[in-house]
């Protein structure tokens, strides 16, 4: 675990959670500071479970964590964590007959904002921030998928929480919407702690100052995107044929093969990407799990 550039605002130690005999989280420890931290991992890695634990939606079996100095292991502490939290779940749901404004206003009341005038100002602010100011009077059932996702983000942002937990917010969005979402998340990450789960390594490369890689319920890497990319330094090469010794290889648009793994003598090394580092981290994890040495 490398040092954080800012003091930690969220710390977790030894978080463990089992579903039956399966360890969804296995002794997870991490520290988050201000800015956007990306959480990468394959399906079933435990990302959503970790986010749900951090959002106090489900308690861990063991371990502890604090959010902005609040400990959620007590009822009062959990309430305080929730007051400092914005949460966008993987599959956000809505009351479809509510307008975008009414829904975010409802969430604002659930965040204990009882002063009507101030609350309405705040709802208008977050809807403008996610570019939904013009459709705030439209019923949610009439909004597109991307717009609904932005309503959910507005609901997470309302009240200006210090800790934002976003579970795959760009899934199912078209490239333009994804770009817009990245912009919103980057802005949201200014001055607050954002934990962003994603399958998109580009999201992490473009948005995050820190990255955590999870596999099989454990943290396999924690550091900067540059450090993750550096793991693939000297381990990516191009060739005219697919190299059978490569861990992964694919034909690129130019017709050449891009290979990731242990290059043969004299291979033409190419610049690695964050995705290469991520693939090799996962590969090392599965090799270690099956007892194979690389």
């Amino acid at each position, binding site marked *: 675990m490398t040092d954080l550039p800012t003091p*930690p605002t969220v*710390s*977790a*130690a*030894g978080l463990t959670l089992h579903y039956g005999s399966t360890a969804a989280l296995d002794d997870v420890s991490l*520290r988050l500071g201000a800015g956007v931290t990306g959480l990468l991992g394959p399906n079933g890695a435990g990302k959503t479970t970790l986010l*749900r634990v951090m*959002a*106090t*939606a*489900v*308690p*861990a079996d*063991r*371990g*502890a*964590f*604090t959010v902005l100095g609040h400990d*959620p*292991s007590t009822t*009062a502490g959990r309430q*305080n964590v*929730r*007051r*400092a*939290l914005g*949460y*966008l*779940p*993987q*599959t*956000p*749901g*809505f*009351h*479809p*007959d*509510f307008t975008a404004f*009414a829904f975010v*206003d*409802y*969430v604002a*009341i*659930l*965040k*204990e*904002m*009882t*002063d*009507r005038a*101030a609350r309405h*100002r*705040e709802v208008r602010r977050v809807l403008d*921030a996610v570019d939904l100011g013009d459709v705030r009077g439209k019923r949610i059932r009439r909004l597109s998928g991307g717009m609904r996702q932005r309503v959910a983000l507005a609901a997470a942002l309302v*009240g*200006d929480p210090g800790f934002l*937990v976003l579970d795959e917010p760009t899934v199912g969005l078209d490239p333009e919407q994804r770009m817009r979402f990245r912009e919103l998340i980057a802005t*949201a990450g*200014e*001055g607050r702690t954002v934990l962003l789960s994603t399958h998109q390594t580009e999201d992490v490369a473009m948005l995050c100052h820190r990255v955590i890689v999870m596999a099989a319920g454990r943290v396999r890497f924690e550091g900067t995107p540059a450090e993750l990319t550096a793991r693939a330094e000297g381990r990516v090469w191009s060739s005219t044929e697919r190299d059978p010794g490569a861990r992964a290889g694919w034909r690129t648009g130019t017709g050449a093969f891009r290979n990731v793994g242990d290059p043969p003598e004299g291979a033409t090394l190419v610049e690695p990407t964050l995705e290469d580092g991520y693939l090799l981290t996962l590969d090392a994890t599965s090799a270690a799990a099956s007892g194979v040495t690389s």
Partner: protein
Amino acid sequence: MRGVTRATKAMKVTEVTEVTGDSGGRRVSSTARTIRALVPPVARALPWLPLAVGGVAGLLLAAVPRMSSGEPDGWLALLLLRVAALVFGLGLAFLMDDPARHTTAAVPVRRAVRAGLRVALVAPVAVVWWTAALLLIPEGVRPPLGDMTLEAAAITALALAGGAAAVRFRDEPEPGRSTAAALLVTGLVAPLLPDGWTLFVQLNADRWDEAHQTWAWLLTGALLVWAMCLPEPLRRRRLAISTPRS
């Protein structure tokens, strides 16, 4: 994006934080303000369509003895009143449906408060509905009001408990359909139970009082299950006390 509202928010959060660390009176007053503000959106979010369908269908069933020609039949009146209560209960089974459940999973206002508010908003409607259903039964064949109200209350509690249990154990945002189906199956199977066990006893049966004691237990049990399934997070094992690494 932040600007002025950072101050607004800071003001609100400060207010809330003060409340948590302050006197019980202020906490109660803050909760009361929140509940008052929640009434309109929660009322709007209620599943009014299934409630209306269940209510209207139930009233039509209860009205059959009054509308039919000839001498009212006590047995038919009792049967129809029970079926009416079950049909209204099917509508009530949707009361715990909350499509926004996951989006509002991590807010300070507790789930139990929201569920309680839903029930409180529907309770007057249910009382008026039940009164109307009873009044539709001709007076001469109207079964004992107290015992029938107990049966209807138990069916209502079962509908609520089923919904809350489905949410708790399956994390289902909209358990209405499965709960209604389970309630319907229960309602259809219950009369088939052996004589010593049946809940739907006839007016002159020796077991009337005994069956209604069982209804009372059922009501109590269902309310307990409902209340126990409301608190969240879903699993309430305490976190081990340890200090996070800094």
